[in-house]
């Protein structure tokens, strides 16, 4: 739930009961005020009636109003207190009950008792009360509406820096070279947040950079000792008195060394790709690169008796580093050759902006998601490093190309969507 919705919900939860209570209170207060007013008028009229009685020569019934509901009447009973009560009278013309306030009092004058009854319709007061209450309700509605609008506007303006920071964080990619700079906001809380984030991303970035530099330096540092071992093996091989077993051992050492140095080289390449060290782009024709790569590997393809088919339905040019485009397509083709069987098939197609390399071969033993993961090998016994496809992925990621894999009709298919 959005913060603004939550604020509004809480506000409503608290304000609605309060408003309802306030509504009831004001209803009763206004009503009692109005009643007091009516009662005062009635009392006032009572005094007038008493004055009228004083001026009477002899006791008789006097009607004080045209509807004959208010009157002075000689009475035999005598109560000292004045009774005020609510009553209603059915109005035949209006066909409804009309509320009345009724005063009933007794007055002694010169030995005669008079009953004074005064009725006053409270219809106007009721209407006034109704009017006041609807006005109140209207004000409450206006208040609520204003609250919503103000809150919405505030959230738009006050929270703007927050959303900006949020989208900045979402778009932050540590692999991109720039450390993210969060702009300062006029709200001090957001400023604090941005400062903290700036500090954090700076730290993460510098750690990340150091880590990458370490990988690169470590790989570089390893080259010289590897070179020494390699050179000494070459020298040792020239020794004339080597036994067959010793030769085999030398061969094992050399093969292992070769694997180690190609591992080192490949890791260095991966680091360089991720460090964006291949940043000079030129226009590359994919078909040319594909043809060149096929030529480079024609030996391998022939030796494995692989039938290679190409289908380039259109020319496709892309801005890219030439070394990386070579590596990208080479690795895809190598993968298709390595994991193929003798007399298998490879199909290379360019269709629109998609390059696919399809090859025959055993179904995958590892999960599809693991294909592009470093050192994940489908066949542990095969003499590969398990880095070829991670390089493909790494290059694709650098340029935001999408990679995909599927297996159907006994064909593994790797596709790169350029752009």
């Amino acid at each position, binding site marked *: 739930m959005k913060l603004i919705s939550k604020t509004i919900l809480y506000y409503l939860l608290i304000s609605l009961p309060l408003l309802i209570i306030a509504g009831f209170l004001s209803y009763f207060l206004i009503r009692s005020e109005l009643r007091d007013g009516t009662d005062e008028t009635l009392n006032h009229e009572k005094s007038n009636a008493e004055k009228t009685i004083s001026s009477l020569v002899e006791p008789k019934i006097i009607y004080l109003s045209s509807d004959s509901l208010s009157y002075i009447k000689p009475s035999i009973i005598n109560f000292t207190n004045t009774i005020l009560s609510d009553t209603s009278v059915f109005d035949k013309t209006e066909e409804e009950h009309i509320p009345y306030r009724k005063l009933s009092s007794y007055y002694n004058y010169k030995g005669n008792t008079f009953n004074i009854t005064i009725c006053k319709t409270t219809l106007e007061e009721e209407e006034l009360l109704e009017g006041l209450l609807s006005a109140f309700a209207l004000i409450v509605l206006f208040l609520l509406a204003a609250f919503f609008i103000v809150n919405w506007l505030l959230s738009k303006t006050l929270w703007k820096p927050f959303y900006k920071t949020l989208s900045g964080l979402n778009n932050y990619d540590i692999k991109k070279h720039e450390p993210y700079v969060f702009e300062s906001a006029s709200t001090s809380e957001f400023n604090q947040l941005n400062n903290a984030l700036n500090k954090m991303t700076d730290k993460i970035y510098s750690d990340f950079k150091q880590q990458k530099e370490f990988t690169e330096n470590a790989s*570089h*540092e390893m*080259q*010289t000792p*590897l*070179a*020494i*071992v*390699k*050179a*000494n*093996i*070459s*020298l040792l*091989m*020239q020794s004339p008195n080597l036994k*067959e077993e010793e*030769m*085999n051992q*030398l*061969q094992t050492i*050399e*093969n292992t*060394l*070769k694997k180690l*140095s*190609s591992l080192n*080289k*490949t890791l*260095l390449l991966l680091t*360089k790709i991720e460090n964006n*060290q*291949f940043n000079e782009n030129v226009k590359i024709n994919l078909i040319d690169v594909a043809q060149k790569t096929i030529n*480079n*590997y024609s*030996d*391998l393809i022939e*030796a494995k008796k692989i039938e290679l088919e190409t289908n380039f339905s259109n020319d496709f040019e892309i801005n890219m580093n030439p*070394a990386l485009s070579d590596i990208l397509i*080479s690795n895809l083709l*190598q993968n298709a*050759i*390595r994991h193929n069987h003798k007399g298998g098939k490879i199909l290379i197609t360019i269709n629109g902006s998609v390059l696919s390399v399809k090859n025959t071969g055993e179904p995958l033993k590892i999960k599809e998601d693991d294909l592009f993961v470093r050192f994940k090998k489908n066949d542990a016994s095969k*003499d*590969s*490093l398990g880095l*070829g496809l991670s390089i493909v992925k790494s290059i694709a990621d650098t340029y935001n190309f999408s990679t995909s894999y599927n297996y159907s009709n006994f064909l593994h298919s790797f596709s790169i969507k350029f752009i």
Partner: protein
Amino acid sequence: MKILLIEDEPELRKSIKQYLHQEGYIIESASDFIKASEKTADYEYDCILVDITLPNGSGLDIIKQLKHDNSKAGIIIISAKNSLDDKITGLDLGADDYLAKPFNLAELNSRIKALIRRRNFDGNKAIVVNEITIVPEERTVKVNNEQVVLTAKEYDLLLFFITNKNRVVSKNSIAEHLWGDDSDQMDSHDFIYVHLRNLRKKLAEKGCTDYVQTIYGIGYNFKINV
């Protein structure tokens, strides 16, 4: 033939010197920038092997100095930094070749020889080994004055053998020479065997002695009795 080796790592210096000494080169070495610049200033060399990262200086500056002095020496960069930038900078400065560590001594030897061949090019210099004659400029091979038509790989293989004649060259170094970086990716030993078989057949057809000895487990030796 005088070669200067500028390399700070003593063990590597020692093995390179040992290997190249057997080729009959006069080889001197320098372990840091200062010694290297003194030597290059005082003496003439046919070929200079230079490491880029050196104590108290950069090998690239030595190349600059050599070019400034109009030195005729061929320059091969041997660097641990296999970076494209270094390679391009080095070659732009006037270096003739670039070899990334770790390299094979046989490969270094073949690069030096190729460089010297290009440098000392006066007239059509052919490499003659008994009945085999190779003209590197034309990439042609003759056996007993008869042309042998070789594929590019077979030619490269033969030249590599002859360059490193009477040496044991491992299959790995052959693979690296023929396929470069790609040799990591393939089961190259089988391909070497295929190319070698074809090469031997083509040479034998012209009546060439089979000089290639198989050294069990390791590789081959192009053996020519002196």
